[in-house]
Structures are given as structure tokens and as C-alpha cells.
């Protein structure tokens, strides 16, 4: 089940990667080599096995509902490419 160029385009879009078709085609070989490994896994008779979400037998690592100290706002905003009046500024994400 090798990926098609169409699927590659979709993946690139989901990952917000700007790649043209030539670049995507160049990536297809290594990605499809990877897919071949998964095909091997999928061939195994695992119908009776519960999907493993976590490999360690540990459950219920909780914290109590106790308030701690938040970051000072200057520090919270320190890494932001842009900030103003205590708000993070991002490129417009709705149509104008």
C-alpha cells in the first residue's frame, strides 16, 4: 500500500509543509520504504491482541487539584515572535 502523490500532498498540507510535486515525488521512495515495514507488521495475526497504548504497567498518575504559581507574564510572552498588551499576536486566522 504505497502512498500516492495525492496522499503525499494531503500529508504535506496537514503538516503545513510547503513542498512542490517534484519535492514530494523525491520523498515518496523513502516514505514508501517505511510503509513497507508497517505492511510487515500488519501481516501479523494480532486480531486477539489489545492495541498497546502504553508499554509500562503504570496507571493513574494524577495530581491533586491544587493551584500553583503561574509564570510572570513577561516570561510567558518572552519567546513570542510578537506580543502586545499581554496578548500573543499571530497571523490572521480567520477571513477578514
Amino acid at each position, binding site marked *: 500500500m504505497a502512498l500516492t502523490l495525492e496522499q503525499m500532498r494531503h500529508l504535506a498540507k496537514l503538516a503545513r509543509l510547503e513542498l512542490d510535486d517534484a519535492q514530494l515525488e523525491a520523498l515518496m521512495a523513502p516514505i514508501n520504504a517505511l510503509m513497507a515495514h508497517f505492511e510487515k507488521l500488519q501481516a501479523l495475526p494480532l486480531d486477539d491482541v489489545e492495541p498497546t497504548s502504553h508499554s509500562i504497567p503504570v496507571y493513574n498518575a494524577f495530581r491533586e487539584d*491544587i493551584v*500553583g504559581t503561574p509564570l510572570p507574564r513577561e516570561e510567558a510572552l518572552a519567546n513570542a515572535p510578537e506580543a502586545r498588551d499581554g496578548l500573543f499576536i499571530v497571523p490572521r486566522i480567520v477571513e477578514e
Partner: protein
Amino acid sequence: MEVHAQLLTESKMFCACPTRFGDAPNTNVCPVCLGLPGTLPVPNKKAVEHVIRTALALNCRIAPIALFYRKNYFYPDLPKGYQISQYGEVHPIGTHGYLEIELNGERKKIRIRRVHLEEDTGKLFHYLPGESEVDYNRAGVPLMEIVTDFPPDIHSPEEAREYLVQLRAILTYLKVCDGKMEEGSLRCEPNISVAPEGSNQLGVKTELKNLNSFRSVVRGIEFEVQRQIQILESGGQVVQETRGWSEEGAYSFPMRTKEFEQDYRYFPEPDIVPIQITEEWLESLRKTIPELPLAKAERYRREYGLSDYDARVLTADYDTATYFERCVALGVEPKTACNWITVELQARLNETGRAISESPLTPSHLADLVELIQSGTISGRIAKELFDEVFQTGRMPSEIVKERGLVQISDEDALRAAARQVLEENPDAVQKYHAGKTSVIGFLVGQMMKATQGRANPQRAQQLLREELEKFR
């Protein structure tokens, strides 16, 4: 129907930041909820318990093992690039539940598909062209999602409203959510579609947002149903989309869509180990579930002989029901307590914007007031005036009565004298009465109440007036 309820916790879902509403932007954030590299989320136990308790109250099957998933998307309302949530039908905390509603005297089960736990997103603003502004205070606040089953059991705007009324009541009884629709701590998104008459082949659905009150829910759904019918009857096609509701304009409009694809690539959250819900844990939580609204309403009808309407009004809110039960425990006759609470008290609370739990006029005050009326110490009119004063000052009614000499006049001679004086001052009325227009007695009683500053017993006053009128013939 999808409902999102912000859970009542002090701290966020996966970090210790406060959940407080209304603070200055980005002051309740930390490396975890800002999604900084190297941080790890740790679930809030209380939030998990809130969801388990809700799922129990909604008659759900509880997953022995519940899992968190990552829902991946590019949108700046969450800084991590994904929302920690639970995934569809795979290991959410509750599934296969139902909620009972009562409409026009009939009970109906609305099936619940799932109850799950996730984190809320930050708030976006679009003040200036070319940019959006983000406040992450709300990012990571524990959020519960409750989704009804498909095919739908809700077939009208009224049923949708009733479902939400009951759900909100249950959430507030459990104290897991404050239920404030106006503030957005309880948000509902109905998915609406129509079918040809007599068929159950549902058409394309639309999702409706911005419904901030029960009234909006009914109006919004009614509008959307009509809109879809009109499109279909004129040969058009309904577009599957999310629409917003404008309460002022009373119309729905297509929402500006998020730019990302609806392809979330869910996978189990590797940073959070599974939640194991044991029988013992469940049992201890089951014990914390109070009598629920519908059962309470039924008991009020049965035990106290209250009407359907009264029972519903009193039980719609946990604190109101508690207030009522305290009054009854203090010896107030249930129907009397109900009337004072749902009429006088509710009006004062609405005027002052207070919650019933903050009422300066407590059940003890009300019991005292009712006792004063029943013993004949004060008249109903004085009682209403006192009610206002007690609500403002929090003083005991009997104290005020004693201090002001508001005690009802029981001295027969004094009352009779007052009656005679009223008749002497109102010869026209007396004449009318004798001419057969006996309804003027109401006016005369009013005059007598005025003359005695409301301290006469109205029934007794009327009786004395009639006796004196006969003497005037």
C-alpha cells in the same frame, strides 16, 4: 447535541495554573499549558472524578480503562499543536448512557453516546486587520464533552431545551459545572437536520453555535429547521456547515471556517498513562451523587403535593431545592414555602443579581415571617413589606415587628371604631352598598387597611364593616 461543560476545579487539567475567569490575559499560564518543550502533562484527579460522577449520573457504562488521545491540528487556540482529548468511541470515560426528560407529563429517554474529558482552548480575538490576538488563560481548563446518540432521540426544539435544562440541573446538582450559559461555562451545539414527513431519512445536518441561553436554543433550532425546509422545498440542497446564531437579529449565518482540514490523526497520548477505574473507586464516587432533579421533583409532588410546575421550578437548581427543603424542615408548609420562594424571593434575587445561596433572607427568616402571618400577628400586606426590609437588612422579621409595633390589631373595639370611621368618611360608598353594589366592600376594606397602617386582619375587617354597614341602613 454536543455539550461542553467547564469543570469546577481550582487548577487546570494538566497543570497547576488557576482556572479563574476574567483575569488579565496570559497571567494564568505556565510552561505546560503554553506547550513549551520538555514539559509533561499530569491529569487533575478531581476533574477525572467530576467526569466519572457525571457519567454515573447519566447512567453510563464506565470504562475500566480510559485513555487520553492527541487530536492534532494547526490552529493557535492551543499552543501545543494538538488538544489532549479522548477519542470517539475508544476508551472515553462514559458510554451507552441516557438522560430522562419529562415533557407534557411524559417521560422520554435521550440516549447519551459518550461523556469524555478534554482541555479547553485559549481565546482568540481579531481586533486589528492582518492579525489575531491570543489569550491562553483558558487553554487547559478541564472541559467535559457530552454527546447524545445517533440516530437522534431529540425531535423538537422543546425536547432540545428540556434535555439541556435537565442536563444543566444534573451538572449543578453534582457541582461539577456552574452551568452559566451566558458566560460560556456551559456551551451547547445542536446538530440539526430534517426528514420528509413520515420518514426517518434525515437530510444533511448543520451545526449551530453561539446559543447562550435556553431561549436562544429554542429560537435557533426553530429558525434552522425552517431554513432547511425552505431550501429543500425550493429544490435546493442543505450545505453541511457550522453556523452561528445571532440572538439580536434572530437568524443563523455561516461561520467563518477554520482553515484546517478535519483530519486530526488521533493517537494515544504517550505522556499520560491510562486511567484505571476500579470498582472501589466507582463505589466511593457513587456515594457522592445526590438525589437528582427528576427524582426530587417526583418526590416533591408525592410528599408535598406540589404541582408539576412548582416541583420543576424548585428542582431546576440545586441551591433552590436546598433552600426549599430547609424551609420545610423549619416547619413551613411546603406550598407556602414554594410561593414565597418562587415569587417574592425570586423577584428580589433577579433584581439584585444575587444567587439564592447568597440571599440575605435565609430559610430561618422565611420561617419566622410565615409563623408571624399564621399566628395572626401580622397581615399579609405587612409581611410583604417586611420581606423587602429583611431582604435588604438580613434582620429577623419578629424583631422588626416588635420594634415597630407592627403587630396586627386584635382589639375588637379599636377595629370596630376604625370601621365606623371609614364608613362615616365614605358616605358615597355606603350608599352604593345599600343600593346593592356590594362589591364596594373591597374598597372599604382597603380604606380600613390604610387607616390602620395595614395592621388590621383583612377578613376580620370585612366582617366588621359588613356588620357596621347593616347598622347604617
